[in-house]
C-alpha cells in the first residue's frame, strides 16, 4: 500500500513531539508535544496509539521517521528510519523558512545553533551546525530546575519578561547548571526578586550559548528561535532579541529597512516541531525508496519490549545493587534507620536556661536549642524559600512553641549563628557570635562522639571533610565551587522522577542492579542519566546508581583521598544528605571497602542530629561563651516576633566604591528592635550627611549585606573613605608581592637605548647605520603597540616593556588591555570558538578590549601577542623550560577568532604580530624577534640584539627586586613569628580577575602574600633552608627539583614544585595553590605538591578549578575556615615545624602560668 501519511517523531531528552503530515500536500493532520518524564518509550507508545486511534487510518498507509537524542533505539522497534536531529532541523528550516540564515534551538538537554552561509557565486546555502557536546548547561533543563528552585509555576515562567530587568541583572553562571543553581541560591538568600533572577538566568543562557556555540560566527538575520524553551518562555525570546540585536549593532550588520527586531529574530509557528518536520522532509527528499523502507510496523514490538524489559545483565555498565542480600539490607536498616527525635519534655512552669544555634544554610534553615549541658532540647528545620530572616523567625517560633506546649518558659542565654546568611541573621537578632560552618560542624560532632577522626558533612551545596587529631582539627577539605556529589543533586534527580526525596532510599533499595556512573562533574552525571534511560535502566536502578556514586564524588573527586584508612578509623557522617539511607549505605560500603586488607574495622557513625549538626555546634559555642562570662546580645523572643523588615536589592543598592560593583542587599528594620550594627569606624560628628539612593524610612535602621569587601558595608562615602583608609593601612602593613608584581610588571622602567656600538670593519659603515637607526627611532616614536594583559605576560612583560622602550618606543605608546573584570570578559568573549581554560579564553576578551577601547582612544599600529614557547628560569637540572601548549597557542586561536568572518585587524588597520619566542635561548630569541618585527619597526639586527639584551637584563632586575622583597617579608615573618602564604600558581594567577581576589582577602586578614617567583634564592637563604640536605644529596642543588620531580619540563610547574619545597622547609610559610579548571600542567603535580607539604605538616590550602565563575560564598567560607584554622592552631603548628620555637613557646607558657599563679 502506498505510504501517503508520514509520521515525524522527535524523541528528546525531556519531551516527545509527534506530527502527522500528508505526503502530497504536506497538510498537518495531527501534532502533539508531551513531556515524557524520563519514560521515552512509554510516551512514544502512547502518542502512536493516539495517532492510530484519533486519525483512524489504516496503519499500512503510514511511514514513520524518528529523530532526537532518544530516537535511535526506538526507531527499529516501530520500523522507523532514524535521522540525526540537527540535520532534521536544517532540512525543516530550508523547507519552511528559506530566508532564515540562523537557527537557535534550545532543547531539554541540548542546545544547537545552525548558521546558513550563502556562497556568493552560486547562491547555494551551506549549513554550519554546532551543538553542546556534553554539558547540559544553558538548556531547558537548567531553566526548569531553577524555576522550580525559585518556586515559580510554569505559567509564571512562560510569561516572565526579560526587558524590565535587562539593566539590573545579577551574576549567574550558565556555564554549568550546578553552578547556576548555587548562584541562584545565593541571590535568593540575599533577597533578589524572582523575576530579576529569572531575567538574569535568561541573560546568562543567551550569553553562554553565544559565546560557545556560535563558534566565532555572527548570527545573521533572519534568526529562527526553535525548541521548547524558546516556544514557551517569552523572556527567553526577549533575551535572544536583546543580545543578538546588540551584537548586530556592534558588528555593524546591515538590516533590511523597516524590519523590526521581532520580525528578524522570531519564533515561527510550530517551532517546537521543527525536528519532527525535518525528519519527514528528509524522507520526502530521499524519495519512494526511503519512504517505503520506513513503513510503520505498529506498536506491538514496542509494547512487547516494554513488557519484557531486558534484564540488567544485558545492559552495559552493570553493577550490583546497593545491597548484597536481603538479610544484609535488613541488618543495615535496623542499625542505621534513625530513631525519631523526641524533644526533651520541659517541666511545667519552669524557666529553662537555654542556648540557641542557628544555621542559615544554602537550601534550608535550622535552629537548635540546647540546655546548659549541651543536650538538644528541641530543633527545627525549614526548607529555604529564599527569605532567611523569615525562616529564622519561623524556626525560633517552633522552638518556643515546644516550650509553650510543655508549659515552660525559655530563657535564651546565648545565641550563635552559622551558615551562608550568618552575618545578616546575627546582626538582626543580636547573636553573640558568628561561627564558620566548618567549626560549627566540628563542635557538634566532638560533643557527641569521642575519638572522632573524620567528619563527613554533606549539605545541600557543600561538602566538608574535617580531619581531626587528638580532638583538634588537623586538616580539612571543602568542595571549591562544584557541588557534584551533594544532596541537592540527589534531590533534584528524585524530583525529575517524581519521587519525594523522603522515598529516595526506599526506591533505590528496590533495585536489584544499578548502572555504574562515572563520578565527577554533575553535568556528566546528568548526561549519564540520559544514556542509562536510553539503555533501559529503571528509575529505581538509576537512583541506586547515583547514591553509589556519592562517596566516590566525596572521596575521589572533591577530596582526592583514595586511601581513607590513613585518616583514622572513626567517621562521623552528618549534614542533611545523611537522612537519605541509600546515600548512607553507599558511603558505609565505600569506607568499609577502603579498609579491606588493613587490620582496622572502621567505626562509622551517623550523627544523631545530622541535619542540624551545624546549628547544634553554634548552640554549643553560645554555651561556651556564656560559661566564659560573655553576656548575651540576643534581642529576646518578644522583640523577635515584632521584627518588621524590608529587603531591597536593585541598582540603587549597588556599591560603587570599588571595581567589584557588588549588588548589595539592604535590609531595613524597624528600630524598636535594637539591632547590633557594627560600630562605625568614625565618630558620628565627623560624618557629613550623604543622601542614600534608597530612603530609609523613619524609625528604621539599615543592615547591608551581600558585599565582597568592607567598603560595601556602608553607604556614606565619608565613612567608606575611613574604612578604605583602614583597609589600606592593613594592606600597607601586610605585603602582597602578587599584587605588587601585577602592578610593577606592566610599568615602564629606565632602559638603555639600543644604539649600536660598532667595532672592526663595521665601523666603516657606522655612520650610515647610526644615521638609519636614529631615523628609524624617530619613526618608532609615533608607533603605538597594544599588548593584551594576559597569560605569561604577567611574568614576562618587563622583558617586552624594556625591549620596546629600548628600541625607542615611548612607554606611553605601549598600551595594555585593562585588568580582567567580569565586564571585560562578558563584553569580549562572544567571538570565542572553543572552550579551553579560563585564562586562555580571556585572551579573546582582552583583544576585544584592545580593539574597541584602547584603539578608540589612540589608534594602535600593532597588536603584539607573543607565543611564549619557553622561559628563562633559575631552576637547575630541569629537562626543559617549556610553557603550557594551551598558553603558547592562544595567540593563534585568537587570531583565528578575529579573522574568520572578517579580518578585524585589517579593518582597523592594525598589524597582528604573534611570534613564537624561546626566551631561554638568547640567539634564537633575537632571531625570532627580528624576523617578526624587522619590517614593522624598521629594525636592524644590531639594535634588535641590544634591545633583547636590555629586555633580558630588565627581566633579571625585576626578578631580583621581588626576590629581595620576598626575603624582607620572610625576615619579618621570622621576627614576628607569623604565617605568610606562599602562592603556588602560574603567572596569570597574579591577575585579580583570574584569582578572584582570594589573595587580597587573605592579605586583608593580615597574612603576607609571597608569590612563588618572589621567594628568595640567594645563597644564604638557600643554605639555611636546605642545610644538611645539600651535603646528603649532592646530585640535587638547592635550585633543583629532581629529587621529587624527575620529569621537569614545564617551567611553571617546576617553579611551583620548587616553591612547595621551600614552603615545606620554612616554619613560617604556609602554602596556597591556585589552579584553573582544565589546567593540564597543574593536574599531574597535585599529588607531588601535596606530599611535599604534608611530609612537614605544612598547612596547605587549594583553590582549584578556578574559572569565569567567582563563587564568592564558597571562597568566603574557605577563607574564613583557613583563617580560623591558622589562628587556632598557630602555636601548635609553629611548634611542630620549628623545635626552637617549641622550646621558646613552652618557656613563655611556663612564664605566663607562673605570673597567673
Amino acid at each position, binding site marked *: 500500500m502506498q505510504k501517503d501519511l508520514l509520521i515525524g517523531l522527535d524523541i528528546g531528552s525531556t519531551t516527545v513531539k509527534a506530527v502527522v503530515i500528508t505526503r502530497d500536500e504536506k497538510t498537518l493532520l495531527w501534532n502533539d508535544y508531551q513531556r515524557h518524564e524520563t519514560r521515552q518509550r512509554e510516551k512514544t507508545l502512547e502518542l502512536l496509539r493516539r495517532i492510530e486511534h484519533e486519525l483512524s487510518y489504516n496503519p499500512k498507509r503510514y511511514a514513520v521517521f524518528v529523530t532526537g537524542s532518544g530516537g535511535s533505539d526506538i526507531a527499529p522497534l516501530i520500523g522507523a528510519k532514524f535521522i540525526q536531529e540537527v540535520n532534521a532541523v536544517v532540512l525543516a528550516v530550508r523547507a519552511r523558512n528559506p530566508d532564515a540564515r540562523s537557527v537557535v534551538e534550545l532543547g531539554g538537554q541540548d542546545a544547537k545553533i545552525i548558521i546558513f552561509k550563502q556562497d556568493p557565486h552560486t547562491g547555494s546555502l551551506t549549513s554550519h551546525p554546532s551543538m553542546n557536546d556534553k554539558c547540559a548547561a544553558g538548556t531547558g533543563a537548567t531553566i526548569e530546575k531553577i524555576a522550580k528552585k525559585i518556586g515559580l509555576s510554569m505559567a509564571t515562567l512562560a510569561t516572565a519578561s526579560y526587558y524590565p530587568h535587562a539593566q539590573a541583572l545579577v551574576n549567574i553562571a550558565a556555564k554549568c547548571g550546578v553552578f547556576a543553581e548555587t548562584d541562584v541560591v545565593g541571590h535568593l538568600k540575599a533577597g533578589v526578586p524572582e523575576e530579576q533572577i529569572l531575567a538574569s538566568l535568561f541573560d546568562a543562557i543567551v550569553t553562554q550559548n553565544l559565546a560557545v556555540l556560535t563558534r566565532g560566527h555572527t548570527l545573521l538575520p533572519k534568526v529562527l528561535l526553535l525548541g521548547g524553551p524558546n516556544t514557551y518562555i517569552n523572556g527567553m525570546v526577549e533575551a535572544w532579541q536583546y543580545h543578538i540585536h546588540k551584537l548586530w549593532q556592534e558588528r555593524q550588520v546591515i538590516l533590511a529597512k523597516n524590519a523590526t527586531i521581532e520580525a528578524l529574530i522570531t519564533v515561527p509557528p510550530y517551532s517546537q516541531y521543527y525536528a519532527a518536520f525535518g525528519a519527514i522532509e528528509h524522507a520526502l527528499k530521499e524519495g519512494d525508496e526511503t519512504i517505503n523502507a520506513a513503513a510503520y510496523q505498529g506498536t506491538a514490538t514496542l509494547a512487547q519490549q516494554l513488557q519484557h524489559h531486558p534484564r540488567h545483565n544485558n545492559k552495559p*555498565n552493570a553493577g550490583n545493587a546497593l545491597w548484597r542480600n536481603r538479610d544484609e539490607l535488613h541488618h543495615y536498616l535496623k542499625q542505621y534507620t534513625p530513631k525519631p527525635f523526641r524533644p526533651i519534655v520541659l517541666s511545667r512552669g519552669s524557666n529553662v536556661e537555654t542556648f540557641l544555634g542557628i544555621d542559615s544554610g544554602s537550601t534550608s534553615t535550622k535552629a537548635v536549642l540546647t540546655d546548659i549541658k549541651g543536650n538538644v532540647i528541641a530543633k527545627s528545620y525549614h526548607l529555604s524559600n529564599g527569605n532567611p530572616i523569615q525562616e529564622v523567625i519561623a524556626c525560633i517560633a517552633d522552638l518556643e512553641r515546644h516550650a509553650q506546649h510543655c508549659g515552660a518558659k525559655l530563657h535564651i542565654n546565648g545565641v550563635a549563628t552559622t551558615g551562608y546568611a550568618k552575618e545578616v541573621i546575627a546582626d538582626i537578632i543580636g547573636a553573640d557570635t558568628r561561627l564558620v560552618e566548618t567549626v560549627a560542624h566540628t563542635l557538634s560532632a566532638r560533643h557527641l562522639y569521642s575519638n572522632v577522626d573524620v567528619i563527613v558533612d554533606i549539605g545541600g551545596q557543600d561538602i566538608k571533610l574535617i580531619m581531626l587529631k587528638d580532638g583538634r582539627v588537623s586538616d580539612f577539605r571543602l568542595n571549591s565551587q562544584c557541588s557534584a556529589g551533594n544532596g541537592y543533586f540527589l534531590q533534584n534527580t528524585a524530583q525529575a522522577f517524581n519521587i519525594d526525596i523522603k522515598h529516595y532510599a526506599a526506591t533505590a533499595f528496590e533495585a536489584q542492579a544499578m548502572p555504574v556512573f562515572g563520578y565527577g562533574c554533575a553535568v556528566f552525571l546528568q548526561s549519564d542519566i540520559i544514556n542509562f534511560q536510553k539503555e533501559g535502566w529503571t528509575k529505581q536502578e538509576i537512583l541506586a546508581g547515583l547514591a553509589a556514586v556519592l562517596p566516590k564524588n566525596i572521596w575521589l573527586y572533591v577530596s582526592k583521598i583514595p586511601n581513607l584508612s590513613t585518616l583514622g578509623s572513626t567517621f562521623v557522617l552528618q549534614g542533611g544528605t545523611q537522612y537519605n539511607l541509600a546515600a548512607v549505605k553507599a558511603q558505609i560500603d565505600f569506607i568499609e571497602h577502603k579498609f579491606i586488607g588493613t587490620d582496622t574495622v572502621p567505626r562509622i557513625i551517623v550523627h544523631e542530629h545530622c541535619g542540624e549538626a551545624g546549628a547544634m555546634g553554634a548552640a554549643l559555642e553560645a554555651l561556651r561563651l556564656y560559661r566564659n562570662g560573655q553576656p548575651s546580645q540576643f534581642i529576646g523572643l518578644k522583640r523577635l516576633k515584632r521584627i518588621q523588615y524590608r529587603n531591597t536589592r536593585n541598582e540603587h543598592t549597588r556599591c560603587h566604591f570599588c571595581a567589584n560593583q557588588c549588588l548589595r542587599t539592604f535590609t531595613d528594620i524597624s528600630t524598636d528592635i535594637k539591632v547590633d550594627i557594627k560600630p562605625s569606624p568614625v565618630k558620628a560628628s565627623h560624618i557629613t550627611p550623604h543622601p542614600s539612593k534608597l530612603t530609609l524610612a523613619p524609625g528604621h535602621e539599615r543592615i547591608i549585606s551581600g558585599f565582597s569587601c568592607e567598603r560595601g558595608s556602608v553607604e556614606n562615602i565619608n565613612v567608606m573613605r575611613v574604612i578604605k583608609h583602614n583597609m589600606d593601612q592593613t594592606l600597607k602593613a601586610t605585603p602582597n608581592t602578587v599584587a605588587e608584581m601585577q602592578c610593577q610588571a606592566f610599568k615602564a622602567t629606565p632602559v638603555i637605548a639600543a644604539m649600536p656600538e660598532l667595532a672592526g670593519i663595521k665601523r666603516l659603515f657606522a655612520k650610515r647605520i647610526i644615521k638609519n637607526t636614529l631615523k628609524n627611532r624617530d619613526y618608532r616614536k609615533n608607533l603605538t603597540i597594544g599588548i593584551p594583559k594576559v597569560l605569561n605576560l604577567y611574568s614576562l612583560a618587563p622583558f617586552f616593556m624594556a625591549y620596546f622602550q629600548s628600541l625607542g618606543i615611548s612607554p606611553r605608546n605601549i598600551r595594555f588591555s585593562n585588568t580582567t573584570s567580569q565586564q571585560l570578559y562578558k563584553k569580549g568573549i562572544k567571538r570565542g570558538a572553543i572552550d579551553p581554560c579560563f585564562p586562555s579564553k580571556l585572551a579573546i576578551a582582552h583583544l576585544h578590549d584592545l580593539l574597541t577601547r584602547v584603539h578608540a582612544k589612540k589608534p594602535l599600529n600593532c597588536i603584539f601577542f607573543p607565543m611564549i614557547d619557553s622561559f628563562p628560569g633559575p631552576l637547575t637540572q630541569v629537562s626543559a623550560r617549556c610553557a603550557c601548549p594551551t598558553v603558547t597557542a592562544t595567540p593563534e586561536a585568537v587570531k583565528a577568532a578575529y579573522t574568520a568572518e572578517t579580518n578585524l585587524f585589517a579593518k582597523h588597520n592594525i598589524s597582528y604580530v604573534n611570534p613564537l619566542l624561546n626566551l631561554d635561548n638568547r640567539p634564537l630569541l633575537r632571531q625570532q624577534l627580528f624576523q617578526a618585527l624587522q619590517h614593522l619597526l624598521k629594525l636592524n639586527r644590531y639594535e634588535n640584539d641590544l634591545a633583547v639584551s636590555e629586555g633580558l637584563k630588565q627581566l633579571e632586575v625585576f626578578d631580583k627586586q621581588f626576590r629581595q622583597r620576598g626575603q624582607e617579608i620572610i625576615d619579618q615573618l621570622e621576627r614576628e613569628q607569623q604565617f605568610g602564604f606562599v602562592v603556588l600558581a602560574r603567572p596569570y594567577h597574579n591577575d585579580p580577575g583570574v584569582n578572584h581576589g582570594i589573595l587580597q582577602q587573605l592579605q586583608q586578614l593580615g597574612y603576607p602574600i609571597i608569590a612563588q617567583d618572589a621567594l628568595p634564592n640567594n645563597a644564604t637563604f638557600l643554605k639555611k*633552608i636546605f642545610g644538611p640536605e645539600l651535603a646528603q644529596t649532592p646530585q640535587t642543588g638547592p635550585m633543583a627539583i629532581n629529587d621529587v620531580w624527575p620529569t621537569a619540563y614545564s617551567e611553571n610547574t617546576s617553579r611551583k614544585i620548587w616553591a612547595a619545597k621551600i614552603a615545606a622547609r620554612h616554619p613560617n610559610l604556609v602554602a596556597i595553590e591556585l589552579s584553573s579548571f582544565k589546567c593540564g600542567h597543574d593536574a599531574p603535580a597535585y599529588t607531588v605538591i601535596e606530599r611535599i607539604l604534608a611530609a612537614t605538616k605544612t598547612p596547605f590550602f587549594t583553590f582549584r578549578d578556578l574559572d569565569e565563575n567567582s563563587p564568592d560564598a564558597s571562597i568566603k567560607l574557605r577563607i574564613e575556615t583557613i583563617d580560623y584554622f591558622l589562628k587556632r592552631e598557630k602555636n601548635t603548628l609553629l611548634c611542630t615545624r620549628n623545635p626552637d620555637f617549641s622550646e621558646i613557646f613552652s618557656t613563655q607558657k611556663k612564664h605566663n602560668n607562673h605570673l597567673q599563679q
Partner: protein
Amino acid sequence: MPVPKISLPKQLNHWKPVSPATFTSAQRPHTTLLFGGLTPAHEKLIQGGLSALGYHSAIIPTPTQYDFQTGKELCNYGLCNPGYFTGGALVNYLLDLENTGLSKAEIIQRYAYLTATSPCGPCRFGLYQNELQLALEYSGYKGFRVLTIEQKPSLWGDTRLGLNVNSEFSLTLLYALLIGDLLNQMAYTIRPYETEPGETNRVLMKSVDYMSSTLATINAFSHDTSAHDTAAKRKTTNKASSKYFSRVKLLSQWFNFFAGQNRKHILTALHQVGHWFNDIEIDPLRLKPVVKITGEFWAQTTEGDGNFKLFEFLESEGAAIHNEPVATWLDYLIHMERLKNKDQTQLIDKDEIRITPMDKIKAWMRYKKKQIALELIQYQHASLYNAMRRALYNLPSPLINQQQLESLGHGYYHSRARGGEGHMEVAKNLYYHLNHLAHMTLSLKPFGCMPSTQSDGVQIAVQATYKNMIFIPIETGGEAKTSALSRVQMALSDAKVKANNEWRTTLQECGLSIETVQRVIQQHPQLIRPATCLTLHHGAASVAANLAYHIKQILPSLTR
C-alpha cells in the same frame, strides 16, 4: 615573647618519592614485559618483535570504560583520558593476575610495564610515568617497575638496565609499528566494501599473526643481554677500536634493516599478506562517505572505549575511514628534530659567548653531521614505509611529506609550537580537503587536550576560508557518549550528501550511467579487485566516483 631563633630544618623528614626498582639484565629471563595502548594489530606485532629480541611479553587488552573509571580513581584528578584509560587498564590487569593466585609481591617481581613517553613537547603524555606509579602505589603495587623507552638515567641512576634500547631494539619496534599501521589501513580500506561480512577482519587477524611470527623468527639480531657487559667490555678493550667496531656493527644493523636481509624477509611476508587481502571480494559501488581521522595521538589510534569505538560506529553508519598511521607521528618527531638542529646551525654566529673560528667550524661540523644523520633517518623511514606499501599493492595511503604539512598548516598554527599535533591537525584537514581525499575530517581528542583544543580554535579560520569543508572535533572519553555519537552522525549526514553530489557530478562528467558502470565491472571483474579499484585517485574522494573516472578513461580500450 622573645624572638625565637630560626634554625631550619634538621629534624624534618622531607618527602622523597620511592626510588624506582631497577630492571636488570639478569631479571630479563623471568620477567614479563607488559605493554598496551595501541591497536591490537600493533600490539601483537610488537609482541613478535620483543620475542625476537629475547623478551617475554604480554599484551594488556584495549582499555575499556571500566579501566577508565579505575584510572580516574587512582591517578591525579584533572589528568587527560589516555592516562586514565591506560593507567586503569594496567592496574586492572594486575588485579586480574592477582585473582589467578599470584601474590602482589610475585607480580611486582615477575612483571614490568613498558611504555613510551612523549619527547615532542610539554603535553601531559610526558608525565604518564608518574601517573602510572601513583596508580600502582594506590592499588598496592608500590615498587612495580614502569620502564619507558625514552627514559634517561635520573637521580636514581639507570633503572632499566635490563632493557637494552639499542638500534636493534628501536628498529624492530619500528618494523612492528609500520607493519601494524599498514595492516590496519588495509583493513579500514577494504572492510566497508567487503561483500562477505567479517572477511576482512578474518584476513586481518591471519595477517597479523603471520607477520608477528615472521617478526619473532627474524634471527638477524644479536641478543645482547647486558648493557653492563657491553660497557665493561668497552672499558677493557682499546677505546678507539671499540668505537670503530661498534660503529661498524651499527651500520651493518642499519643496512640489514633498511636494505638487507631483514627488509627482504619482511617484504616477502608482506607480499603474501597483500595477496590475502586482495582476494577479498568487494563491491566498490557502495557509496561511502570517506572520513579522515585525525586528532590527538592516542584518541585517534585506539580502537576501544577511549574514543567511543567511533571507527566501528562510523563504519556501521556507512562511512569508510582513513585512519592515521603511527608512522606519521614518528616522521613528525624526526622532522622537528631536524628543524631544531637546523636552527642551531644557523645560530652559531649569533651566540653571545665569543668563540674562536675553529670552535665555530667544529660546532658547524657537529650540527651538520647530525643534520645529515637525521635526514638519512627520515629518508629511510619513508623509504621503508613506501616499500612496505608497495608490497601491499599500494593500498595503504602514502605518508604525507612533513614539509608539505608544515607549509599547509603554518599560516594557521605555528609549526614550531610544541605539545602535540598542533599545525598537523590543521594541515591534514586541509590536505585531505584540498586533494579531495575525504568528504569530512573527524578530529578526536581527549577532554581538555591542550594543543588539540587550540587547534580546533584555529580550524574556525580554516573553515571560514573553505566553506564546503566538513570538519568536526569530538572530545572523547568516559562520558557523554550519546551526545558525541549524535554529533558525529550530524556531520556524517552532511558528508553523505557531499558523497552523493560527488557521485552524481562524476557520472555526469564521465557521461556514464550507473547501469553502464555496473555492466563494465561485471564484464571486467579484474576492475573490482581491492588492489585495482581501491587505489584509484582521479580527483574524487569516494571509491565509486574514482572507479567511474577510471572506467571512462579505459572504456575505449575495453570496448575495442
